[in-house]
């Protein structure tokens, strides 16, 4: 590497990075009945180690009831040419408490420690925002999507932090007429950011009332932003094809305009791109069929809770949290995805209730892929209140993490038989794991400017 900032000069360089030997995932007690703090778990992922596939340390949060959820690095490849920056801190917010925990993962990568906490009360009073979700760094600064205002009402906005984790204020100049916030991703060479819509915190936090979808309390749009002006400029109304659009991913290739979103309740994949006339367009490219269930009055929707693109942008992965399958699609032609792999774990269809000796409670939910594209890590909990509705046994069984080996040549997936982390056996009782990251960056952390 000829430069000394964090990350990699290009996605192709990132793919040559050493294998990830430590994994970080958050684990929650919020909503479980165990009165303990949520924590960041460190997992030994060195196959030659005696503690391979085990939790080797736990970094407890200072308070109870955060509901840790997503997390992000303080710096990524967008700072590659800035030698003053390093990928040292994970920002780990609590969706419910709005506390943002800054965790030092570099001083001792096997034992991360709390460096600083930005109190939710301070964020609310300084910015009138709550419920932090997605974190991206933009150069040496950090933006975080916040799903509500200080009272839990939509649409929230974007919290802007400097590199020392001080609150600058609101990042956006305008929310336009955006009704809801959730995930976002930006592609600076095209001066564009895309954001999606979940719902107001007061709507999604207590649990999922299906009827509220019909009352327009959940999202069904994607928003394109003028990234430099920090304001929305175009909306894709997805309608019934895009009910509850969650994770958004641009191609890692910084020159590409192609991107994808998983619409959870419609169980569709939405693809967008800019055409030769500089117009932004969208289409539905994958439609997961609902599945019959002997005890359900209506077929079960897949509920696509997450999507992810491999670093070379050749494969798209999606999870059907209620069905219980992870799918791999070749998207080299992004208009015409080809299903190349599928594995089952957990889910409501009873196709794979036990994997590697562990009863899988929940379904495949958050996923993270190794930089070389060969190992996919999957966890099973979605959100405490929603877990409690669809998979109530998760209270006693806890969540788990599994690894899926991915064929990056011909396509194909297979669950690794030697790797399983059972969070049902944690020392303080069953907890639930969610998003995963590792020290060298991963397939959802880095953006190239």
């Amino acid at each position: 590497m000829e430069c000394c900032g964090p990350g990699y000069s290009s996605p192709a360089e990132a793919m040559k990075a050493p294998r990830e030997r430590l994994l970080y995932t958050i684990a929650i007690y919020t909503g479980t009945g165990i009165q303990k703090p949520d924590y960041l778990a460190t997992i030994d992922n060195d196959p030659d180690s005696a503690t391979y596939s085990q939790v080797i340390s736990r970094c407890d949060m200072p308070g109870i009831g955060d509901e840790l959820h997503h997390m992000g690095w303080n710096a990524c490849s967008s700072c590659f040419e800035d030698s003053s920056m390093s990928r040292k801190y994970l920002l780990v917010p609590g969706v419910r408490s709005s506390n943002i925990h800054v965790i030092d993962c570099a001083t001792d990568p096997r034992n991360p420690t709390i460096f600083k906490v930005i109190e939710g009360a301070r964020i609310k009073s300084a910015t009138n925002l709550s419920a932090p979700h997605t974190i991206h760094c933009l150069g040496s600064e950090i933006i975080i999507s916040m799903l509500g205002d200080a009272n839990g009402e939509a649409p929230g906005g974007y919290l802007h932090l400097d590199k020392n984790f001080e609150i600058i204020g609101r990042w956006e100049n305008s929310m336009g007429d955006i009704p809801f916030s959730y995930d976002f991703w930006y592609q600076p060479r095209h001066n564009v950011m895309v954001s999606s819509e979940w719902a107001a915190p007061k709507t999604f936090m207590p649990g999922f009332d299906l009827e509220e979808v019909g009352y327009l309390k959940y999202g069904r749009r994607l928003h394109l932003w003028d990234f430099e002006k920090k304001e929305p400029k175009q909306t894709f109304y997805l309608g019934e094809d895009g009910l509850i659009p969650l994770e958004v991913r641009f191609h890692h290739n910084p020159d590409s305009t192609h991107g994808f979103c998983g619409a959870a309740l419609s169980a569709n994949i939405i693809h967008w791109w800019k055409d030769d006339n500089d117009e932004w367009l969208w289409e539905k490219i994958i439609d997961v069929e609902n599945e019959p269930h002997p005890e359900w009055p209506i077929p079960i929707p897949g509920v696509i809770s997450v999507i992810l693109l491999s670093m070379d942008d050749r494969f798209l992965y999606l999870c059907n949290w209620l069905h219980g399958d992870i799918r791999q699609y070749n998207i080299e032609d992004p208009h015409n995805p080809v299903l190349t792999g599928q594995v089952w774990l957990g889910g409501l269809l009873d196709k794979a209730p036990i994997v590697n000796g562990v009863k899988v409670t929940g379904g495949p939910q958050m996923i993270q892929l190794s930089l070389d594209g060969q190992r996919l890590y999957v966890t099973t909990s979605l959100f405490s209140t929603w877990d409690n509705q669809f998979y109530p046994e998760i209270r006693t069984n806890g969540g788990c993490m599994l690894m899926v080996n991915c064929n990056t040549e011909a396509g194909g997936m297979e669950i690794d038989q030697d790797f399983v982390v059972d969070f049902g056996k944690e020392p303080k009782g069953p907890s639930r794991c969610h998003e995963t990251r590792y020290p060298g960056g991963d397939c959802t952390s880095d953006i190239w400017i």
Partner: protein
Amino acid sequence: MITHTVTLANRANTTIEVSAHRPLLETLRSQGIELPYGCKYGACITCAAKLLNGEVDQNKQVALNNRQIENGYVILCVARPTTDITLEIGVESHDKLYRNPFLDPLQAHELKADIATSKDP
């Protein structure tokens, strides 16, 4: 200061005197009762408890639908007692809080207050 007595049915009927003007989560925790909580603005349901007797003012809560209210749930981070009350607290009280929305849909009058229709129009 006006106070009311809170009886905790699933904590061996422990009784606690609390202010009528402070949220129950705050006053109970300050007296050493362990309670789950999250947002502290009445929206996230983590601190829900079941009211077995008495009345509270919880007009600031926005988390509960009418079925949950009908089943006695109150949001402790914003609820204030207006009489002596008896509560069942903690996750043990959540037996009727969660339901599979596909298997057990809500009737129109059971939705959240802002969208519910009257049961007997």
